[in-house]
């Protein structure tokens, strides 16, 4: 494994126990048990329709916005029960940020895109503080050098890769603890993808990252742990190295060697 160490003994940041997700009558996930270790990258892999994105979206309750979606079981962020009635979804999502498949900058300036989260959560007391947050987030996302001198321009005018990094900067600006990424590179070219992958590797030092990906190479390159989903079931989870070199389940073996999926 490229990253060189295993995270199996790291503290658990998020955990799922016996999670079932339904869309109307259809069950999309069955009895998922998964621990997400802190300050590391967990990759969710599996063929299309296996439920990995559904699982990702249930971690910050983005599934709430989907009509007819029901989640059973327990998901915890540290000690907080995510699906408890007392939980404020808005605060939860500030702690568990999200980056989407297709870059979705708001039709506002670059500055306003990044300042959006801090503004709605009241994270900055003054314009100077807000400026500082924007600059720090753009630097963390590796975008400052490219756009630092044109913050007033529209975010939608950037290239696809830059837009996606802008979306990452936007997520970082609210200082989340966990960042969920739903196939963040699937709409990008290889060079932009390499950029984002490097970025993910750097962000791991401060943030807990869960990434859904269709690319096995990407999972192998950026993640420390990998979970393989198939037909709504979590088939196997373990150190990325183990999963890719010595999977214990036949289906995992079949998928990573390209026999199906």
């Amino acid at each position, binding site marked *: 494994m490229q990253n060189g160490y295993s995270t199996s003994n790291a503290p658990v940041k998020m955990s799922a126990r016996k999670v079932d997700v339904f869309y109307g009558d259809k069950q999309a996930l069955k009895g998922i048990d998964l621990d997400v270790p802190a300050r590391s990258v967990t990759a969710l892999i599996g063929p299309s329709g296996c439920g990995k994105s559904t699982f990702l979206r249930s971690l910050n309750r983005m599934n709430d916005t989907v009509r007819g979606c029901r989640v059973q079981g327990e998901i915890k962020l540290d000690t907080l029960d995510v699906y408890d009635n007392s939980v404020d979804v*808005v605060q939860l999502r500030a702690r568990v940020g*999200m980056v*989407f498949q297709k870059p979705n900058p708001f039709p506002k300036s670059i500055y306003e895109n990044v300042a959006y989260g801090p503004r709605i959560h009241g994270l900055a007391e003054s314009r100077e503080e807000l400026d500082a947050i924007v600059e720090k987030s753009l630097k963390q996302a590796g975008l400052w050098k490219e756009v630092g001198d044109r913050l007033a321009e529209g975010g939608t005018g950037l290239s696809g890769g830059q837009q996606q990094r802008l979306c990452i900067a936007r997520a970082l600006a609210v200082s989340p603890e966990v960042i969920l990424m739903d196939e963040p590179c699937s709409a990008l070219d290889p060079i932009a993808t390499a950029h984002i992958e490097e970025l993910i590797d750097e962000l791991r030092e401060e943030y807990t990252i869960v990434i859904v990906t269709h690319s096995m190479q990407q999972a192998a390159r950026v993640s420390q742990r990998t979970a393989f989903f198939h037909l709504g079931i979590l088939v196997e989870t373990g150190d990325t190295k183990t999963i890719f070199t010595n999977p214990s389940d036949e289906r995992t073996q079949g998928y990573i060697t390209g026999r199906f999926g």
Partner: protein
Amino acid sequence: MSTSLLFAVLLILSLGGYLLGRRRALGAAGGKITGLHSLPTFYGWYVVIWCGLPSLLLFGLWVAAEDSIVRVLVQNALPPEMLSLRADQLSLLMSNVRNVAYGLVPMDHADPQLRPIAEHYITLHQISTAALWVVALVLLIAGMLSGLRRISPEFRARNRVEQVAQWLLITASTLAVFTTIGIVLSLVFEAARFFAKINALEFLFGLTWSPQMAIRVDQVGSSGAFGAVPLFAGTLLIAAIAMIVAVPVGLMSAVYMAEYAPQNLRAWVKPALEVLAGIPTVVYGFFAALTVAPFVQQAGSALGLEVASQSALAAGLVMGIMIIPFVSSLSDDVINAVPQSLRDGSYGLGATQSETIRKVILPAALPGIAASVILAFSRALGETMIVVMAAGLAANITANPLAAVSTVTVHIAALLVGDQEFDSPKTLAAFALGLVLFIVTLALNIIALNIVKKYREQYD
């Protein structure tokens, strides 16, 4: 033999051409469809085009032109003493002749002087009809033979038929355009006649509107003043009141329907709101004149204000209600067109629904919303019936919504109602007002459509 019978015969024969074309194509290919370039029906249609198009086209042109040609012929053959008549007397004479010829006046009751002329007219008409029968049928049969002769298994009938179909579509789509051009031209020419009599600057910037013209020289008090500013001011005042009602209500209902309303409620409320747009404006007019105007007047007097029985406020309020659907329906569409990914992005950052709407969705949808407001405004400018019934005819310049005002459209209607000479400035003024209204609403619509277009490109 009548022309309508000929029309039916042409259609039936064309249908026969269809069957013949199909048969011949199948026969040429030895009865196997696979031996043909196109399906047999295309060969049938190909023959129909050959026999139907030229003969029907001729039929149409003939019927359209026949009457004027016959008239010219009859007129040229008139006895010399009639030819020397004045132009208007001549045209009266000709219409009498036609009345006799078409049997509206029985021949034995007709002026004996007119009888030979009417008979000449009838003869010419009969000759023309007979000639049409012959020419149309010959054209049809020649077309049919020519079409049938071209059919062979390799012949690309499908491509030819589709080409003709394309021309048909082009004709249909240009029809509306040409009609519009015709309307504009008629407006422009009549307005030009008006401006030949009244100075355009006086019309556009004059402050008095009193279009009564003296019919007799000794008539009192009808000087004719054509300063349209009071009408423009009244139109803008009423439209502004309408927008004050329609924009907030329409926009808020659009936001509710697009973002908050559950699916089943939305499926019910949206059509219900759109019904508002389908109510005849006359009905809104009743409502304005009989319910809202008295209410406004009573409410005003309760507050110690003097309100005219026909007030701009009453007309504006009802007009505002009428154009709510224009604002809400289009705004609802543009709000729905904002990509879900933007909502997800905002929710993913921990924004609430109302923050997402205010800070992401409405700004993103703003161009489309602006366009819907502009379209509603141009609709308000052109509205007539509500204002006729609720705001009255008094052309005042005032910004007081409680006073009676009048609008451009109301005066267009008023100018054309009743006995008028068609060349008096009073009547022609209606066309000038119409032209101004047309130019303004056209400009507004073009602006709105451009905004919508730009907005679409943004998300494609």
